[in-house]
């Protein structure tokens, strides 16, 4: 029975087997997945996670992909999802990086210990030869007790052999300690595979079956598995370590600050040119203004205009200025989708090439001052794309404390790409001095806020512990697939939030609340920030869409109403000011309401305080 298992939401036809693809991150699993399933693939999101499971059909059987993990247990979302899919699979196709046997075989042995029928695809065999290694495959197969097939999946080598072998998958040789103990718990669970996890003290599985096991065996099992694997590797691998390749050297350069920082800056510059300039301006110019803003807009307003009028509330809600069928899809599909896809494309490139964990290592030291660790670089980079998207990915951080700090910093000091474009446009003509003032102010606020939160918040952040995989040239098809599935998942998650945000704004506008908010801000804007009261309107528009706010400033600046110094003050305020309404909603969704209120009110105060102080100095 799999009634306890969230993986059972994916339907399986009667009589067909569940073949589960398992492996460490970046071992080429998806190449096998594509080779087995062809084009018909479904992506399911796991409830409460950002983790997606792709599944498709191979002949009569169901093929399930799993997130890359180093072992089956419950250390994070990926592992919990992979665990649930693996536990109830019928056949496991374990993809192993041949260059990384000592790491990957731990997972292999754990699956064998579960008692699952396994086929091992020893992938990336070409890398093995290139690095002067030799692997005795027959001996490896004999030691593990399962079929091991050498492959170079990206070149299609060995795929047919794997397909043929799938039906002959067999159970391998269990560790003796597992063999000795498994019968003690086997009766308290539904599946044999679960018994191993009960022995390994997996809390979720123990709770699921109310199965307690009084001995603490996890470490004993883990250690003997590690020892066993190390012995196997020593016996089957012969190597010639003299061949330190260029990639190894490049890997070193990427983490050493002297070379790593210039490399990182160069990569970010390329990314800025590609996403910030090409996508945000050229592509969005077409998608937002022409395709969505003109063709789609005219079509939908004509169509729905037959049923509703823009004069009344319903009309406003549907096709008004911030309407559910006007602004929402234009913004989501015209502006956000290209930007989000662009960012995910680069993130996938960095992930698949093995660069991302090296960036995390490089910046770890700096981020620890802010109460984060190197891993937080992922939401920070994504924040420059879309703060809403980045806030969702804070889930991958190790503790509540880190998630709070990261969310606060994202909401406060990271300008999203929608806004960045307008900011650059406004500030560039003012010259280097004002640009420096802006950048230094925002950066200072970022660092001070993080440092302060790290000082005052109780608890302890987690530390960096990350695998640095060998550098590889990413497979374009795999990168595109990841970009597609991540962008799709984001759009599904974000679309309702943006719609809700648009509805709230329409209500606020229709009831006159929006105007009263503007009139509350006007005196502060005029008195403390030394700006024209009309700028207050731009601030409030910034809540609706961050780029609206900046764009509002643009028209005031070009009309000569505000000076260069005032533009900088206003931009500082608008950058630090609360994020857009969708980001606010996502913060409330991800964090507790108390934390969300602190983030919201906190960024409000910080924005006006910082801009006010700056105004006293430069205006």
């Amino acid at each position, binding site marked *: 029975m799999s009634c306890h298992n969230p993986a059972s939401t994916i339907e399986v036809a009667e009589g067909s087997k569940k073949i589960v693809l398992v492996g460490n991150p970046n071992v080429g699993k998806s190449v096998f997945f594509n080779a087995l399933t062809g084009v018909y693939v479904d992506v399911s999101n796991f409830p409460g996670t950002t983790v997606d499971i792709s599944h498709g059909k191979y002949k009569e059987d169901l093929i399930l992909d799993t997130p890359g993990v180093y072992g089956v247990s419950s250390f994070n979302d990926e592992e919990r999802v992979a665990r649930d899919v693996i536990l109830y699979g019928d056949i496991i196709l374990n993809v192993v990086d041949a260059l990384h046997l000592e790491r990957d075989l731990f997972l292999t042995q754990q699956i064998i210990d579960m008692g699952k029928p396994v086929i091992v695809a020893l992938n990336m065999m070409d890398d093995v030869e290139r690095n002067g290694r030799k692997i005795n495959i027959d001996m490896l197969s004999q030691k593990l007790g399962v079929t091991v097939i050498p492959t170079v999946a990206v070149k299609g080598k060995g795929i047919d052999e794997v397909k043929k072998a799938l039906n002959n998958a067999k159970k391998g040789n269990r560790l003796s300690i597992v063999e000795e103990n498994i019968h003690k718990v086997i009766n308290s669970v539904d599946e044999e595979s679960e018994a191993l996890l009960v022995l390994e003290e997996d809390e979720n599985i123990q709770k699921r079956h109310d199965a307690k096991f009084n001995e603490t065996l996890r470490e004993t099992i883990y250690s003997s598995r590690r020892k066993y694997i190390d012995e196997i590797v020593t016996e089957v691998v012969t190597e010639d370590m003299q061949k330190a390749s260029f990639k190894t050297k490049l890997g070193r350069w990427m983490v050493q*600050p002297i070379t790593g920082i210039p490399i990182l800056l160069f990569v970010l510059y390329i990314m800025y040119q590609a996403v910030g300039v090409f996508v945000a301006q050229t592509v969005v110019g077409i998608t937002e203004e022409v395709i969505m803003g003109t063709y789609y807009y005219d079509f939908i307003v004509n169509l729905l205009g037959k049923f509703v009028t823009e004069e009344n509330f319903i009309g406003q809600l549907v096709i008004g200025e911030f309407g559910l069928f006007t602004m929402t899809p234009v913004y989501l599909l015209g502006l956000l989708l290209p930007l989000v896809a662009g960012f995910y494309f680069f993130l996938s490139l960095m992930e698949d090439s093995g660069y991302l964990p090296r960036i995390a290592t490089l910046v770890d030291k700096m981020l620890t001052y802010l109460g984060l660790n190197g891993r937080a670089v992922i939401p920070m980079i994504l924040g420059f794309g879309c703060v809403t998207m980045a806030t969702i990915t804070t889930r991958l951080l190790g503790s509540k404390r880190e998630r709070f700090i990261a969310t606060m910093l994202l909401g406060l000091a990271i300008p999203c790409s929608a806004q960045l474009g307008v900011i650059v446009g406004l500030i560039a003509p003012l010259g280097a001095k004002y640009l420096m003032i802006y950048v230094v102010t925002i950066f200072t606020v970022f660092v001070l806020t993080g440092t302060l939160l790290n000082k005052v918040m109780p608890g302890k952040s987690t*530390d960096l512990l990350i695998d640095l995989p060998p550098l590889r040239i990413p497979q374009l098809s795999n990168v595109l697939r990841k970009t597609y599935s991540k962008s799709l998942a984001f759009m599904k998650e974000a679309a309702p939030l943006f719609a809700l945000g648009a509805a709230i704004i329409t209500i606020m506008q229709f009831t006159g609340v929006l105007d009263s908010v503007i009139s509350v801000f006007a005196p502060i804007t005029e008195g403390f920030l030394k700006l024209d009261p009309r700028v207050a309107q731009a601030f409030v528009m910034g809540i609706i869409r961050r780029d609206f706010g900046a764009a509002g400033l643009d028209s005031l600046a070009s009309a000569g109403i505000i000076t260069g110094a005032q533009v900088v003050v206003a931009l500082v305020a608008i950058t630090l000011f609360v994020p857009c309404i969708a980001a606010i909603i996502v913060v409330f969704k991800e964090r507790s309401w108390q934390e969300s209120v602190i983030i919201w009110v906190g960024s409000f105060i910080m924005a006006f305080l910082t801009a006010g102080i700056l105004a006293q100095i430069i205006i």
Partner: protein
Amino acid sequence: MKLDKVTRGQQIEIVKIPDVNIRAQAIRLGIGEGAKLTCSEKLPAGPIILQNRMQEIAIGRRLAESIEVKAV
């Protein structure tokens, strides 16, 4: 000796990892207690990178301060 005191290129053996969760993850990554490794890189005040054959693991400095090692 604690792990943060190792020098680049030094051969070490992991003696003790106090945190239970880190210990389990470390075993899976091949840097558990008893593992013999080389410090392949040490960033100024930053992470320490340990290497075993082709496998490399980066460890945050604060975590390194808690891990007991001995030179081999």
